[in-house]
């Protein structure tokens, strides 16, 4: 084994790497993402792990003191009735709700026929519901100093009435994330990669020696990418039977999302000179695009930056269209924001190509 040669290669790559923005981006991206989800910057981890709870109960309920204590630190919002609480859950103002009868103050005051209800959004996966139930049961046991096995009252978990009306399974809850992923893959990576490959191999020169115009070429490429993104989404929805009742909204948001990522991909293709550059830039954007809305609730920091990412609105729109009852929640704001961002990115792409043409 030629150790000096291996060492020389390592040194060369190290020296090259610190001057190569592809490498720097690839290294920095996971670091920045890890910071976003680590809560180093703001709240404690336990506080972030404790999502906001909506409650219907008396403010004198002793459980509240425990839930809001320094150790657990949950944020509690009180509601007057179940309808208000359900709407807040559907809108995402609170993560889940608890209806806690006032009389459960000591183990001698409850009646067997009474129940504690945990309300959860319809897109919450089963494992999340189970976790929620077991955590809350443990808290009640601790509060009332109850021993196993059975609780002396009923602990019910109920989905807030959504489009499906039922709790969803894990794969259901992942669907909006998978659609966002498909949009990002095609727009941020596949399209610019295809354009830059043409440039690298010189086939772009051959194309432009025919009478085709750059605009026609870009349109052709964009249309194929659009087709690819939509085909992926349609196949995903069809083979899994996930169209639901709001399929027109689902399609509309997917179409706008595909256009947004494709216009972004055209901008990437303009600046990236090699497929390596596309990989670096596209993957970076893709990771933020994909991860921020999916993991928005995992940290306070992520929650704060999420509104600045267009994928947050695509994700929210898709989730509403797939799982929620749109007579109770509004999807229009999400669609309007996605539309506005798509048009902005289109204008940006148009300007980039105009400037490039003028530069030539």
């Amino acid at each position, binding site marked *: 084994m030629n150790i000096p040669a291996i060492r020389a290669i390592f040194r060369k790559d190290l020296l090259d790497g610190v001057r190569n923005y592809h490498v720097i981006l690839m290294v920095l991206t996971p670091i920045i993402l890890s910071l976003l989800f680590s809560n180093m910057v703001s709240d404690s981890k336990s506080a972030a792990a404790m999502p906001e709870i909506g409650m219907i109960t008396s403010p004198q309920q002793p459980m509240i003191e425990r839930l809001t204590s320094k150790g657990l630190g949950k944020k509690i919002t009180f509601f007057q009735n179940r309808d208000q609480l359900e709407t807040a859950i559907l809108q995402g103002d609170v993560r889940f709700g608890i209806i806690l009868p006032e009389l459960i103050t000591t183990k001698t005051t409850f009646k067997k026929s009474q129940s504690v209800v945990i309300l959860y959004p319809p897109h919450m996966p089963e494992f999340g519901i189970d976790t929620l139930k077991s955590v809350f049961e443990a808290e009640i046991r601790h509060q009332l100093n109850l021993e196993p096995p059975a609780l002396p009252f009923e602990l019910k978990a109920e989905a807030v009435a959504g489009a499906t009306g039922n709790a969803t399974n894990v794969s259901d809850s992942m669907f909006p994330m998978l659609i966002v992923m498909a949009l990002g893959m095609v727009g941020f990576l596949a399209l610019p990669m295809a354009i830059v490959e043409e440039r690298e191999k010189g086939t772009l020169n051959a194309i432009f020696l025919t*009478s085709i115009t750059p605009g026609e070429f870009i349109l052709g490429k964009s249309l194929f990418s659009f087709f690819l993104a939509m085909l992926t989404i349609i196949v995903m929805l069809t083979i899994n039977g996930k169209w639901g009742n709001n399929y027109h909204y689902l399609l509309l948001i997917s179409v706008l999302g595909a256009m947004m990522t494709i216009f972004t991909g055209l901008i990437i293709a303009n600046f990236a000179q090699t497929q390596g550059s596309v990989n670096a830039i596209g993957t970076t954007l893709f990771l933020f695009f994909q991860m921020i809305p999916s993991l928005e609730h995992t940290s306070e920091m992520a929650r704060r930056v999420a509104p600045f990412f267009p994928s947050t609105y695509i994700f929210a729109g898709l989730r509403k269209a797939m799982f929620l009852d749109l007579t109770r929640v509004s999807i229009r704001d999400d669609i309007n924001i996605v539309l506005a961002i798509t048009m902005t990115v289109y204008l940006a792409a148009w300007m980039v190509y105009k400037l490039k043409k003028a530069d*030539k």
Partner: protein
Amino acid sequence: MEPFAINVCELKKLYGTQEVVKSISFAVNKGEVFGFLGPNGAGKTTSIRMIIGEIPASAGKIEVLGRAVPAELPEIKKLTGIVPDYQNLYDRLTVRQNLEFFAALNNVTPDQIDIVLEEVFLAEHQGKACKDLSRGLRQRALIARGLLHRPEVFFLDEPTSALDPHSAKLIRELVLKLKCAGTTVFLTTHYMEEADMLCDRIAIMNRGTIVACGSPENLKKQFGRRSARVEILRDNKPETHEFSIDDPSQKAEMASMLNSSTILRIHTQEAKLEEVFMHVTGDEWKPESEDAR
């Protein structure tokens, strides 16, 4: 009717402050094979790229078939075909799929594909992916692509570079066929014999300027040196001497030697284009016999 296939007048190209093409002028007649020669970095490819409108000229005038570049480029593109000096095919597609794509871009009917495939002897390989073809076959596929729309002016940038002799011969035959069909061929090559064989006229470029232009015969007359290799027997030992026939002093020396010695063999050689090239590009040809003498 336009008199020239290509007319270039005081063409310049600057990259920053560096002038890579320095005010060159030349004209290519319709139907001729025009050779554009020069060492690497002479500015040939830059000139071609300006002529076909791929990059803008810094100054000067270019006309292709009487149409101005770049103002009438869309029209010019329909009348010109190009085979670049690199093999830019879609490797994952078959030969036919490549041609179908470019036929569609050029508004050419699919039956034209079969015609060009026959012309370049690629019909039997049309179903193969380009990545599976030899370099020679790929070069023929590029020529087929360039010929799809029956261009009146055909640019061939080093078409036989790194090809085996059979493939190179086939491509040279194709060039001659095109010439017979009345197509103007603009050829760059590093093979002087090829240029000598194919070209009606040649321009040699060096360091951004055209240093010689004319028919191969005229260039050889103007810059070449005819030589003679003489083998004689002197003191029962064979000796070899080489003389430039065009140099009067060497010619006299050779005559004197032939009169006073036993001649074993005389071999005369006409001027070569390679010598012209070396001469005009600054690396003057020196006959081997100069060292021997």
